[in-house]
């Protein structure tokens, strides 16, 4: 096992863990930047992996790290990526629990955090528009995009069901409309 590669894997996931605020899809722009540019996975593969991570038990960031780590460097890679993505949270929370319980009332932290929250809004919007436009290639795909957006926004249907519904539509189209592109 290549130690330098494992170190790079660890550092990459440590960075992703350190700069992911809000969790879930908010980490997608960062993963794309770090993982796609290194050639570890394509954008489509990352979407697939995040869909899987969202549909099975566990935290999405950890699931995604384990899946990609496993693909890059087997079982050891999965463990290294998982420890990498978890470590920043553990260190920050331990520091807060030990030294600084009034953390959330600190004025400077609140100000910096207001900036970060606004940045996350801009980041996820850019990612959402790009991913939607890439997938806007057929009437059926457009219907799935708008339908799943509306279901998630206006009903309490769990995201995992929405992903399963997309999978079902994908299968039905394949089965009954084999020439549909």
């Amino acid at each position, binding site marked *: 096992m290549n130690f330098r590669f494992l170190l790079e894997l660890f550092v990459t996931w440590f960075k992703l863990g350190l700069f992911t605020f809000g969790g879930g899809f908010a980490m997608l722009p960062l993963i794309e930047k770090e993982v796609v540019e290194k050639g570890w996975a394509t954008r489509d593969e990352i979407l697939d992996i995040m869909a899987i991570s969202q549909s099975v*038990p566990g935290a999405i960031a950890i699931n995604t790290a384990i*899946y990609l780590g496993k*693909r890059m460097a087997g079982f050891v890679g999965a463990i290294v990526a998982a420890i990498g993505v978890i470590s*920043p949270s553990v260190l920050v*929370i*331990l520091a807060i629990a030990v030294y600084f319980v009034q953390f959330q009332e600190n004025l400077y932290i609140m100000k910096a955090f*207001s900036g970060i929250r606004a940045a996350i809004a801009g980041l996820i919007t850019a990612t959402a528009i790009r991913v939607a436009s890439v997938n806007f290639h057929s009437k059926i795909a457009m219907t*799935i995009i708008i339908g799943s*957006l509306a279901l998630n926004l206006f009903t309490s249907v769990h995201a995992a069901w*929405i992903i399963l519904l997309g999978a079902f539509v994908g299968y039905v189209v394949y089965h009954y409309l084999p020439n549909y592109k």
Partner: protein
Amino acid sequence: MIYWELFISFFKVGLFTIGGGYAMLPLIQQEIEAYQWITTQEFIDILAIAEMTPGPVAVNTATFVGYKSAGVLGSLLATTAVALPSLIIILLLARFLEKYQEHPIMKAVFSGIRPAVAGLIGAAAIFIIRNTLFVVNGGTSLGLPDLRAVLIAIAVFIAVRYYKVDPIKVIIASAVVGLIIF
């Protein structure tokens, strides 16, 4: 044995919550109430802290509860426990998916999943915009937009969409700008 109880409880949290994030909170709260590891006020504190610190909410909460109830060893144990189900499930799943990823049915299924995820990301963006750029009155009705936050969000959007700036640098810069203008 508090270590064993912590481990089992957070293993359950990792195993029985799908979708991560705040979906995990009801189960975490249930386990905390059953064992009285931390007070209700501490639980409310950790939710505020988890939101403002990096990383998955599940990990933040597990680390905090583990430390408060059983020190550093407790925090490491609770965090390992919450991640362990993911490791088992994802490794099994990865094996299956790698074996069948070229199968036409698998490709068809993912051709339906990708637009569904695109829609979910769109919904996440709308949800985050609503909760960060607008002053929400009492959690229900929308208030006026916070112009400073809107400006940061627009600048970030342009920087990453048109100039391909590294998201991590953008987050750091926004924290600094936030310190100055808020």
